[in-house]
């Protein structure tokens, strides 16, 4: 009782519990977090300001758009936040979907202008489909014979896409044909199905081929999704039919709008169809319908704003990052300079990286997690390998550049600075990251699933194929996309393998010399003209960050979807 008398009450301010140190620690942690975030934010604002230069516009211009676009959208955001129903999410998705769809459309436009003709695409898709068809049919009717199955799995795609290399038999066939006076165009090798399609004497027009190989498959996927969700085949077919009709309407409407028939088809496939399916779902479920207003208000605001600005004669800003920047090549004059060839180079490099790294990385991860022994001297060896993969993930990127230089350029004598060399060198760099993240994903599959599968009398292969991989796939994809995000920004290996500082034309093939976005940005940083170092450079950085943001956003969407299922 004596102590309570001295210190007042046991639960009051002057009790014996001391919170001071804890509170100080908490404040320090908060300060550290805030410092990091705020400094990155300031840097980004700085760069964005350089890239877009919003303050080069008249005050009236800013005020007009603030009133027509920013204020209504901000008000709507607050409204959604208070409403506390899915409207906010609906607004977010309906605004984001068109952006992603447009990016995809742009990707295909670049694909068709730089890499493939529509006919080449058509032939590739058809021959791949034929190969898949053969494999599936074989699996259905003769799955028992393991060796034959393997042969079909390997040969069907090869014959369909690549054809057979020159062999004795073909010399015989061709020579015989020539001796008989027949020229059937065999020329010592068996042509592939793909080449055969390209040699057809009559070809459908571009829009027909696009409709058959791009619009209809995607529409079919959409229809399957709708049919599943609504548990009605008819609704699925309706979705397919509507998409096809909308696409065909482009024959007339496309040229009128100014995007051409092919552009219309791509837009219908990647923008209209996904949005249509999503909006239909929102309307039917009647959840968060209010969110649909958001994109409408945004578009209307921009439209009204542009009318007002035109009428009142306000001058807009002169941003460095504009349509011209995205669609033109580097130039001596800063205002004409653009990033287009470097962007194409980056995308092609990513294709090389995905094709080379994903199978190798995931294969290695599966072996290490599912097959590799954990005891005995082999177990020790495996542990050693795993430790070294961890170490390789930390090796500086410039060293991988050196490896690429030595291996691909000096030894294999592939062209210096070509897309394939860049892709393989950067691919080596992210290979350990992909292996580690895939291992992590495979390890997170509960052991009880494996036990259940083995207990049913499944072989190890069946267990991996049917139980482990489907469960681990979202994790593997997330890890891979994040690693690709790292790859697209790597600069040092590109410098080492001699990627071009800037190119006028986008690369047309994987052995062409190319520049990539970070390499192009780096070369702008050493230009004498300050307009390059401040304006063009900032625009390039923002473009690179936008691509990264889209990739990481995709990874997050996949991960969230996966977690929601659990």
């Amino acid at each position, binding site marked *: 009782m004596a102590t309570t008398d001295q210190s007042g009450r046991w639960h009051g301010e002057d009790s014996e519990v001391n919170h001071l140190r804890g509170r100080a620690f908490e404040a320090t942690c908060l300060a550290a977090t805030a410092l990091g975030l705020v400094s990155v934010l300031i840097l980004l604002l700085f760069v964005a300001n350089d890239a877009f230069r919003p303050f080069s516009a008249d005050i009236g211009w800013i005020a007009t758009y603030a009133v027509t676009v920013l204020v209504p959208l901000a008000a709507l955001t607050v409204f959604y936040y208070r409403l506390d129903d899915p409207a906010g999410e609906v607004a977010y998705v309906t605004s984001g979907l068109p952006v992603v769809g447009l990016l995809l459309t742009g990707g295909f436009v670049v694909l068709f202008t730089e890499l493939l003709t529509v006919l080449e695409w058509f032939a590739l898709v058809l021959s791949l489909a034929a190969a898949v068809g053969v494999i599936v049919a074989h699996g259905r009717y003769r*799955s*028992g014979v393991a060796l034959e199955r393997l042969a079909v799995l390997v040969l069907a795609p090869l014959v369909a896409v690549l054809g057979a290399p020159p062999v004795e038999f073909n010399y015989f066939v061709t020579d015989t044909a020539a001796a008989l006076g027949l020229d059937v165009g065999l020329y010592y090798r068996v042509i592939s199905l793909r080449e055969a399609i390209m040699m057809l004497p009559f070809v459908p027009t571009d829009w027909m081929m696009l409709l058959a190989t791009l619009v209809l498959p995607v529409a079919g996927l959409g229809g399957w999704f709708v049919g599943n969700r609504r548990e009605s085949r008819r609704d699925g077919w309706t979705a397919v039919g509507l998409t096809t009709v909308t696409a065909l309407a482009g024959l007339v409407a496309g040229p009128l709008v100014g995007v051409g028939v092919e552009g219309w088809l791509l837009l219908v496939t990647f923008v209209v169809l996904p949005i249509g399916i999503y909006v239909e779902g929102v309307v039917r479920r009647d959840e968060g319908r209010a969110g649909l207003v958001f994109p409408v208000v945004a578009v209307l605001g921009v439209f009204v704003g542009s009318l007002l600005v035109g009428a009142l004669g306000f001058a807009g800003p002169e941003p460095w990052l504009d349509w011209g920047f995205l669609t033109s090549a580097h130039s001596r004059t800063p205002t004409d300079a653009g990033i287009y060839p470097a962007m194409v180079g980056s995308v092609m490099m990513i294709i090389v990286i995905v094709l080379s790294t994903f199978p190798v990385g995931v294969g290695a991860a599966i072996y290490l997690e599912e097959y590799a*022994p*954990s*005891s005995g001297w082999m*177990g020790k060896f495996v542990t050693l390998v795993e430790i070294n993969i961890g170490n390789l993930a930390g090796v500086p990127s410039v060293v991988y550049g050196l490896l690429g230089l030595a291996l691909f350029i000096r030894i294999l004598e592939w062209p210096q600075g070509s897309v394939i060399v860049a892709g393989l060198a950067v691919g080596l760099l992210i290979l350990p990251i992909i292996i580690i993240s895939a291992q992590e994903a495979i390890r997170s599959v*509960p052991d*009880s*699933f*494996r*036990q*259940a*599968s*083995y*207990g*049913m*009398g*499944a*072989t190890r292969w*069946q267990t991996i194929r*049917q*139980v482990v991989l489907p*469960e681990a796939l979202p994790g593997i994809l997330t890890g891979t996309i994040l690693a690709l995000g790292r790859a697209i920004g790597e600069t040092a290996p590109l410098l080492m393998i001699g990627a071009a500082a800037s190119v006028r034309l986008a690369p047309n093939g994987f052995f062409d010399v190319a520049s990539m976005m970070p390499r192009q940005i780096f070369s702008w940083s050493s230009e004498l003209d300050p307009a390059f170092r401040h304006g063009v450079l900032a625009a390039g950085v923002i473009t690179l960050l936008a691509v990264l943001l889209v990739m990481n956003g995709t990874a997050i969407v996949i991960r969230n979807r996966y977690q929601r*299922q*659990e």
Partner: protein
Amino acid sequence: MTQNEMSNESTDSTPSADGATSSPDPSGDPLVEQSIDVEGSDTTTGSTGKPVIEARSLDVFYGDVQALQDIDMAIPEKQVTAMIGPSGCGKSTFLRCINRMNDLVDAARIEGDLYFEGKNVYDDDVDPVALRRRIGMVFQHPNPFPKSIYDNVAYGLRIQDQTENLDQKVETALKRAALWDEVKDQLDKSALDLSGGQQQRLCIARAIAVDPDVILMDEPASALDPIATSKIEDLIEELAEEFTVVIVTHNMQQAARISDKTAVFLTGGELVEFDDTNQIFENPEHQRVEDYITGKFG
């Protein structure tokens, strides 16, 4: 004792009796003799089935630790054999020896013989995968795959290429597992949406869909509430008409309720007593078993 009578009938009428002709001569095995002796002295039990699984001086080690010591045991066909004992006594280990699930544990080492239908399953020419296709297993915690109910039951049939009449086989398995009426309208729903007891019955349906000879159950009801447990117990008694059931349980009342034979394992991995369930619970031979059953320890 209708249970026993029924199992006897089915033993006699099924052709699978032929499969046991090659089984090792029971007279050479002291344990079978002993159990037959007890059989004779116990008037309440009808008779014993033919042994379908036989362990002979089986030792199991995990690294340096011996988990099972010199186990001799003959498990009769189409009856429920329960294994009870305190934690860590090796009863689950023994169960996992039968279908060679211990092969998946690198540190496990097995010595001695274990015969299934007269074939030593640890012979070099035995493929553990083929063995597990004849000996199904149900685990302690319900572990359905994160697939639809239908795909879960069809899993075993698909991996064994028995895909003709798939719908029919799935329906039969679900009916035998007493789950059909509860799930027939939601076969496409995820199995993870079912309750714990339903999930465990789904796991049983999955195990019996491929029509194995033996079903091993590792404490199948220990993670379930009493009502789900009693459903599983009823199911086990029904299953014994067609399958040989071996069940590990912590729950002595459960063993007494559903099993025909009971094996008592005690600490150190010893099989102390193996006999008819009535005999074990009413008049055990060993003092240690009596102490365990009456709750003096364990």
